[in-house]
């Protein structure tokens, strides 16, 4: 019994150590087992073994691991990230060469996913500290949000520290940089610098916030029932229609164009300081082409969002903070007319900090750049 136990332990140590020395394995099946991790830990056992075997193969497999991230799930991406980190650490500790050229080639291939290119960049920076200096100036329009962010940050920092021959030159520099920036802190910093030069940026338009809406309500949200109740606007919007409201009164669509910064629609102001109620906002836009988009909303209230009749986002949460882009629904904008519907639910809390009832919504791409659309929302007489 004791000898069997010892044998089992030694077997476990061997298996845990991974591949026998010098025996390379085809990375394809190993990567596939890792990418097959599913919900609730399904596939973890097989993935863990594959992970060890993969890492044991050393830095030559780095391009394969990075490439595998291109079509991996968010869960699998983090498994693969850990493999890259472990491979690079072990290579460094063991004096093994990691090919900087291959990493740089990988970074330059924009067909690869942003996360994998970003990870390759971080690996390269560890090998070659001159990497940011060499590569970032060329990445201002990069499809990877993280690489683009660093590129903008470096150029902005240098611009702010540097001197310009004229105020106009500085203005042009900042305006150009604004076209590359996507992260709100950078956009806001550049906008603030332009303001000092007397240039006002319409951030509402820059971010793509919708300002023209039709609104209808209130519908009932007593005890939170309204979040799930399907009221008529969810079945189709007819701007001329009227409906039975919360208290049985007749409610109709009304025009609302907001002049508030960043497209804020304050329903307490527009509809009234009500509790246990639902209001719908509707807007229609045209697009020249079909394209993937994100509808990014902010609200301190429970929301649902539809694009062309299909629900693309919901969140039933009240008064836990309002932040630009906190709610993100993904969909496809059609060429031509598109219809957006948002449902904004106010609950019945009486706390002073739970009275906000408002929303903002913008139309942008995956990096956060406003998508060119024309608002064609009908006016209601």
């Amino acid at each position, binding site marked *: 019994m004791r000898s069997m136990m010892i044998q089992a332990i030694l077997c476990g140590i061997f298996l845990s150590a991974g591949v026998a020395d010098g025996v390379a394995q085809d990375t394809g099946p190993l990567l596939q087992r890792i990418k097959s991790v599913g919900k609730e*830990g399904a596939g973890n056992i097989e993935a*863990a073994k594959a992970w060890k075997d993969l890492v044991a193969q050393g830095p030559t497999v780095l391009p394969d691991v990075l490439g595998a991230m291109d079509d991996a799930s968010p869960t699998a991406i983090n*498994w693969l990230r850990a493999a890259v980190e472990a491979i690079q650490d072990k290579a460094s500790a063991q004096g093994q060469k990691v090919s900087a050229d291959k990493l740089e080639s990988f970074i330059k291939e924009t067909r690869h996913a942003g996360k994998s290119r970003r990870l390759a960049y971080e690996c390269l920076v560890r090998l070659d500290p001159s990497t940011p200096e060499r590569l970032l100036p060329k990445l201002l329009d990069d499809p990877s949000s993280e690489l683009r962010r660093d590129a903008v940050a470096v150029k902005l920092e240098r611009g702010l520290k540097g001197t310009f021959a004229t105020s106009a030159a500085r203005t042009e520099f900042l305006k150009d940089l604004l076209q590359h920036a996507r992260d709100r802190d950078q956009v806001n910093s550049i906008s603030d610098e332009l303001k000092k030069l007397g240039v006002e940026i319409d951030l509402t338009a820059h971010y793509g916030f919708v300002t023209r809406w039709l609104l209808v309500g209130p519908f009932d949200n007593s005890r939170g029932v309204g979040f799930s109740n399907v009221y008529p606007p969810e079945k189709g919007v007819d701007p001329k229609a009227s409906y039975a409201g919360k208290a049985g009164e007749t409610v109709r669509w009304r025009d609302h164009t907001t002049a508030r910064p960043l497209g804020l629609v304050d329903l307490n102001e527009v509809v009234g300081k009500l509790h246990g109620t639902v209001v719908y906002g509707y807007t229609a836009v045209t697009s020249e082409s079909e394209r993937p988009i994100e509808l990014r909303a902010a609200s301190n209230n429970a929301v649902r969002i539809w694009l062309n009749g299909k629900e693309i986002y919901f969140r039933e*949460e009240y008064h836990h903070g309002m932040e630009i882009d906190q709610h993100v629904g993904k969909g496809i904008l059609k060429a031509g007319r598109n219809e957006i519907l948002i449902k904004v639910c106010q609950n019945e809390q009486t706390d002073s900090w739970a009275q906000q009832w408002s929303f903002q919504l913008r139309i942008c791409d995956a990096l956060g750049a406003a998508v060119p659309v024309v608002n064609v929302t009908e006016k209601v007489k």
Partner: protein
Amino acid sequence: MFFAREHVMNPYRIALILPFLAIPLHAEDVTQFRGPNGLGISKETNLPLTWSATDNIRWKAELPGRGLANPVIADGRVYVTATGAYQQKRQIVLCFDLKTGRKLWERQVWATGGTQCHPKTNMAAPTPITDGRHVYALFATGDLVCYDKAGDLVWYRSLVGDYPTVGNNVGMAASPTLHEDTLLISLENAGESFLAGIDKRTGENRWRVQRPRDINWVSPLVIQNQGKAEVVVQGSDGMTAYDPANGEKKWNAPKLRSGTYASPTYADGVVYAPSDKFTALRPSAGEPEVLWQQIKLRPNYCSPIVHQGLVYIVNGNGIVNCASAKSGEILWTHRLDGPFAASPLLGDGKLYLVNEKGVGTVLAAGDQLKVLATNMLDDTILATPVASDGAIFFRSDAAIYCIGEKKK
């Protein structure tokens, strides 16, 4: 609702299990939130009394981002979590050498859940847990990861990937705990809420029970009741105990709703629960017996300590109370400058309290108030201090400090 899962053995599972054979942990190890067993009590001796930004610092290590989790320490390693990058998109686990503070490794995952939160907190709020061979880190993004002590990934799960509505816009902070080989995760939030027992070796669910959909930062606590282990959680439905092996509900005290962020503690068969009124209760086979309640002892963020018949509590404003564990009678009260977010630490006969500005006060543990020292680290500290290897560890917004005499 109660979920159960059958185990399926396969060869890969055997390979995974063997490294998890238990190794004895050193008595000085800090395995989880608030130290061994989650009680805020250390058995360390010769702990420092005084320190400053330049004095009695054995080592200090810069960190790549904020975190509210306390360091966990085992087998000569200090594990710290952090959140970094724009919008807290990176969740980071770091490992330092206990003696020297040298960074041994760093691992990151990309957030798979939402990262919005109240500015006071952040995504590295739950404290990780270690069994000596592994570190298990849960982030408020719902990312749950296990690394071995060399930094190799053992398993990873995206709990938001599994349950897409998990999250809340204020932030989550309940820390995991461990019972034998079951990792206990409490995720009560604005979306799908549950308590789960997860196989620490593989990351797979052993069981999962529904919990109230409500914001809750209270960490689960493992206690002994009638000779059997129970995991106690306190939420908007009161205090409930479950069997950690299978999630079976054992008892519920519906009136003991969590009204604060602080977590309960346990001593001598009694659970001490922050609630609308601070409550001492004795679990039994049925509904627990309420021994006493004291509204003046109600804490905010900071979890209480019970040691040698005394209860120690500090509230968010800096009011420190010492009370009898038997009756709740307040024995002394002392006012410190607040605000306080870190729970206190008791060790070596001393009570360590650190406010958010980095002012560390040392009181004598006991039924007489005695201020021993006041120390200043000019840094923002919201994480609970812990003790190991004759030192106190503070995790500030930017660094980890090991306070104690330098080792030769």
